């Protein structure tokens, strides 16, 4: 495997974890989030900071996931108060708060981010394999959730919260669990990104990144694990296909979102089967 391929595989794996993690919150549980990149960033900053202090890779990844998950649960508390478009605006605000915070923190490198991050101790190919192993585990976990009673209950919460309450579902707890798991996995992706890039900049975790993750979920089909898998690979490879696609990435993503909403609101998954599974 060449260094280029290893790099591409690493990016696909990280994006896959990110998209699947958002899919748990938005796809499975029906809670709109437009600030998911913030949790990716929280995981990355936590892992990078600890790595520079000399913490080993397993600890930094775990700490990144735990920090993102803990803050994710706090943010999830807002979903108990607001729904739909109000929740979308609130989560978007969380993303801006995160960026505004890290940009002003000298101990986090301010606008220049954190550089000089120690390596993982693995060569690029081995590290790519590690990322793929994590992505495969996350994918397996998502498929498990989907077919468990938790997935069934998430579907009910996404469908009608009030009706879910009348069948004994503690809607608040399930929402917080979705936020907790989804944001922790985004934090894990952030930690993996740190050792891949060895430098992190605030702009990597901006609103555009949140929309890029959401695009992968929506185009794949919200709630569909295999659809999100296919869309993430396709959209990550798209800029590699041509220079033009790379230059007009945002334009293409936006156009694809509009086309999917117009012609196939269920995303790629709905083209394959009627109901996402």
């Amino acid at each position, binding site marked *: 495997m060449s260094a280029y391929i290893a790099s591409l595989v690493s990016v696909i794996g990280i994006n896959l974890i990110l998209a699947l993690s958002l899919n748990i919150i938005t796809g499975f549980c029906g809670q709109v989030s437009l600030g998911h990149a913030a949790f990716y960033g929280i995981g990355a900053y936590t892992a990078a900071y600890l790595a520079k202090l000399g913490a080993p890779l397993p600890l930094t990844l775990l700490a990144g996931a735990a920090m993102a998950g803990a803050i994710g649960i706090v943010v999830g508390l807002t979903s108990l108060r607001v729904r739909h478009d109000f929740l979308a605006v609130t989560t978007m605000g969380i993303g801006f708060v995160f960026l505004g915070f890290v940009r002003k923190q000298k101990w986090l490198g301010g606008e220049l981010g954190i550089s000089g991050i120690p390596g993982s101790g693995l060569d690029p190919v081995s590290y790519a394999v590690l990322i793929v192993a994590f992505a495969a585990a996350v994918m397996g976990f998502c498929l*498990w*959730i989907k*077919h*468990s*009673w*938790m997935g*069934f*209950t998430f*579907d*009910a919460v*996404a*469908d*009608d919260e*009030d*009706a*879910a*309450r*009348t*069948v*004994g*579902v*503690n*809607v608040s*707890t*399930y929402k917080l*669990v979705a936020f907790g798991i989804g944001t922790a996995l985004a934090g894990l992706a952030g930690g993996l990104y740190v050792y891949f890039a060895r430098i992190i900049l605030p702009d990597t975790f901006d609103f555009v990144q949140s929309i890029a993750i959401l695009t992968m979920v929506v185009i794949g089909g919200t709630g569909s694990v295999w659809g999100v898998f296919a869309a993430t690979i396709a959209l990550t490879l798209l800029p590699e296909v041509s220079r033009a696609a790379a230059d007009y990435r945002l334009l293409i993503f936006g156009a694809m979102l509009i086309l999917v909403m117009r012609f196939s609101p269920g995303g790629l998954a709905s083209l394959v089967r009627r*109901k996402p599974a």
Partner: protein
Amino acid sequence: MNTLARVEDLHISFGGVAAASGISLTVEQGEFLALIGPNGAGKTTALRMVAGLLRPDRGRVFFGERDVTNLPAHARVRLGLGFTHQIVRPFYGFTTVENVMLAAGHHQTESPWRALASRSRAAAREKAQAILERIGLGAQAGQSPRALPLGQRKRLEVARALALDPKLLLLDEPLAGLSSHEATTMADLVRALSGQGITVVLVEHNLGEVLRVADRLVVLDAGKVLAEGLPKDVMARPDVRQAYTGVI
């Protein structure tokens, strides 16, 4: 008879308008109680306060000996309080049988971690199918609730509540919007459930069917209990007739 549930001095206001002004009543084990009254009397509000979907400004709700006033709706469901909505609320993304399965598997969904560890839906599907057969929706099990006419959606709502193994079933206008024939069939169904040992509290405007099937009436008017007792005794009272029908 033993008292299964009781409410004491329930008050609630919406925007300064009192919807309940001191409602107190008891529900005896095994009875079929109907809450009736004119529009705006506070019937649905009272039922929703018992179910935990509304929190009273003042007063207490007891289920058995337990004070459940501060328990959320889902926790009351798990104690045995089933509820059906006035406007049907099926999960439109599920099939008919899946709607009932989620309720039938309520032990699995009690905690997210238990739900995560549980995958088999066979037992819940079997129980849900049996309940659908019992209430006459067996043939519609695989259909989307969108494909069901209102009468069948109302039955689905009852089936979902039954799947929770309720001790007390709170039914909010299950006959509303149904044809005369459908209303009679639904009333018979609810009566049959009552005969099978489930305590039923029914809020309903269809007075003819209520008088035919209920054991006892509680009449609400302007957020207060106006009268209660056997149907024929209650309906013979002039104040009830005036409040309910507008004529003496």
